[in-house]
């Protein structure tokens, strides 16, 4: 990635529509280099962004999905105890000294590399996605901070492992929890919101070339209006795309009240939201 224009062009080539702002931030994250913390509502393409960056950079894509209780053993490394045990039993026949055995069993051969270690030790370029960081707990956050600020980790039995090449790190969050200042300080921050009408229309058309022109704008219009209702979970781009695909499968060429009501579950994921939207379908369809 040589320039911001270059980023824009490459993202476009890989079917990811980006604006100047997004391209600038990606370029900076790549060049500075800094981990990129991406926040925004669910379904606006945060995870997708990391994937497309892997393709743009021709890098290996490594994903670490966060959840409550995630710890170093699942994120960094773990010793392969069973195999170590076998090795000990095997070597004990040869009357080796403990020092020798110890030297044999604590080697990379017996190491399960978890995503972060894998990203650091990889010889090819890597895009590391730490997905939904807000779901992990704060101990993990501190650990991650340590690993990502120097791009090195220490394994007591082996020593410090330094990154072969600095990976491009993307962390995503749906904003259910706040992060420590120290972590935020080391990241670049990007907030992705729902796209506006033109952007969303362009995305739909790009991803569904088969969709009738009129239908695409009708869909977009409808979804944009649905987002203005105060819903528990407003539809994201991924839902819009699913909906568009549904229309193609059904062979529809324009939105009608009945069709909308039947396919609404693709777009709306909560019963209480469903009630709200259903009532307003006719008025939401107006002017589209």
């Amino acid at each position, binding site marked *: 990635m040589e320039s911001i224009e270059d980023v824009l062009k490459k993202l476009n080539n890989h079917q990811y529509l980006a604006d100047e702002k997004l391209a600038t*931030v990606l370029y*900076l994250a790549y060049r500075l280099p800094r981990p990129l913390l991406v926040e925004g509502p669910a379904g606006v393409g945060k995870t997708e962004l990391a994937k497309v960056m892997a393709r743009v950079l021709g890098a290996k894509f490594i994903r670490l999905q966060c959840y409550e209780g995630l710890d170093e053993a699942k994120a960094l490394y773990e010793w392969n105890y069973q195999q170590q045990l076998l090795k000990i039993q095997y070597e004990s026949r040869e009357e080796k000294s403990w020092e020798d055995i110890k030297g044999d069993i604590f080697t990379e051969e017996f190491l399960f590399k978890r995503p972060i270690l894998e990203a650091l030790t990889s010889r090819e370029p890597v895009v590391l996605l730490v997905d939904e960081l807000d779901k992990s707990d*704060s101990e993990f956050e501190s650990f991650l901070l340590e690993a990502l600020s120097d791009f090195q980790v220490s394994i007591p039995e082996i020593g410090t492992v330094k990154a072969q090449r600095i990976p491009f790190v993307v962390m995503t969050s749906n*904003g259910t*929890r*706040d992060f420590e200042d120290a972590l935020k300080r080391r990241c670049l921050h990007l907030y992705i919101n729902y796209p506006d009408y033109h952007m969303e229309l362009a995305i739909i058309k790009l991803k569904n070339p088969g969709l009738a022109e009129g239908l695409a704008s009708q869909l977009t219009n409808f979804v944009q209006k649905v987002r203005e209702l105060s819903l528990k979970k407003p539809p994201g781009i991924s839902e819009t795309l699913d909906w568009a695909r549904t229309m193609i499968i059904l062979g529809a060429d324009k939105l009608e009240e009945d069709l909308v009501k039947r396919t609404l579950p693709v777009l709306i994921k909560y019963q209480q939201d469903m009630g709200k939207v259903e009532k307003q379908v006719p008025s939401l369809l107006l002017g589209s």
Partner: protein
Amino acid sequence: MMEEKILKFARDLRRAGVPLALPEVMDALRGIELAGFYKERFRAALKATLVKDEMDGPLFDKLFEIYFQPQPELKEEYLGKTKDFSSKDIPVFLNRVLGCDGRELASGIQGAPRGRLARAVYTGSAPDMEELAREGIEMLAPHIEDELEDFEGLVYKAKAALEWFMFTFYLDSRREKGIIQEEEYLVCRENLKSLENRLRRLLEEEIINQFQEKGLDRILEYQNLRRKDFSRLEEREREKISHYARKMGRKLATREGRRKKTGLKGQVDLRNTIRKSVQTGGIPLKLRSRGRRIEQPDLLVLCDVSGSVARFSTFMLLFIYSLQERFRYVRTFLFIDLLAEVTDYFKGRDPARSIQEALEKANLSDTNNSDYGRVFYHFASHYSPFITSRTVLLILGDAKNNWRSEEKPSFQEMTRRARRVYWLNPYPEETWNTRDSVMKIYAPYCSRVMECRNLEQLAKVTEEILSQEGVEAI
């Protein structure tokens, strides 16, 4: 030169409350080197490196506008929408909106602010709107100092000077009656919006001109949601703040870390397990567990909802209900000069609606003025038995007693029985013991009295309360 400006920019941002340190500023400088000064890129580079929380977005945007987007005259962004019309449409429109029964408008009205306002927003003429906006600010300028605290109030006054509300009243009612066309109405509304934007921008400029650095601080303060008074939040902001308040609660709730998730039966009790294993010859056949000791406190909330604190109280109630799973149960009392328990309104329903309903139905006042003494007396005599060593008493109110009598013994009785008593007062601490405030009389009996009127303070308060109460320890 530019570097210096960016350093100044970062300094102002920090002074306004955005957490910023040297590494971020270094990142910003390097970022700009890489991204260049081209409009959107320059801005994106600054924002990504300096602002790490969407909450600070508005603050950044405002300061960026002031620093890097000077707008001496009405420009595109503020430029109104122009309607296709022939010149004879204008008097017809003016007559329809401002006149009565189709009679010709007196030239006096046409020349009055509302007449010129109507003409400007109907035609969407940029120079006319610019002139009106400047006029509004000019009329306001000498009075700004007195009300520097209240930006919205100033905007309101500038609008009033232009007879804005009179015009919009006419506009709405003529539309309802079908006297003006929908399309005309929409154009007017849109132009009113651009005019308002312009008005706000000019007002900011005026404030900065008049008060320099202090003025800039004030303007940034208006944008700072963390420090914005709960009672001054607009609907849209309230939603955002509630979201952040919930997020904050979540952060507190998860802070202990949950690696060792306790099972339903609690943690393994090694000592007990070994002791029992003696019976089976030292082989621990059965795992003993410690059992789950629930240490959730009960929360009793007493909430002043008189006019002076109503908005603060309702916001706080919403927040408390978003945290309610952290307590064994929550009982809510509202009062003005009468006390009423409203806990039942909150059972499993949307808290916002519940509060509304409780406020409408409960009998809370004779006089509409708070009377803390009477309320404490009532509470102590009726509800004291319910206050136990696991009760946390939370009082929300400004302690303005309207010069009525105090009731120390009752309050003492209530607080003596409770595990802890917190009083949250939305007013600044300096004002607590002035005029009719009775804060100093009751404060000695509280575990803590804290100022709480914006998100920043709420964060502090919640952290302190929840850490004290060590909820659900095993």
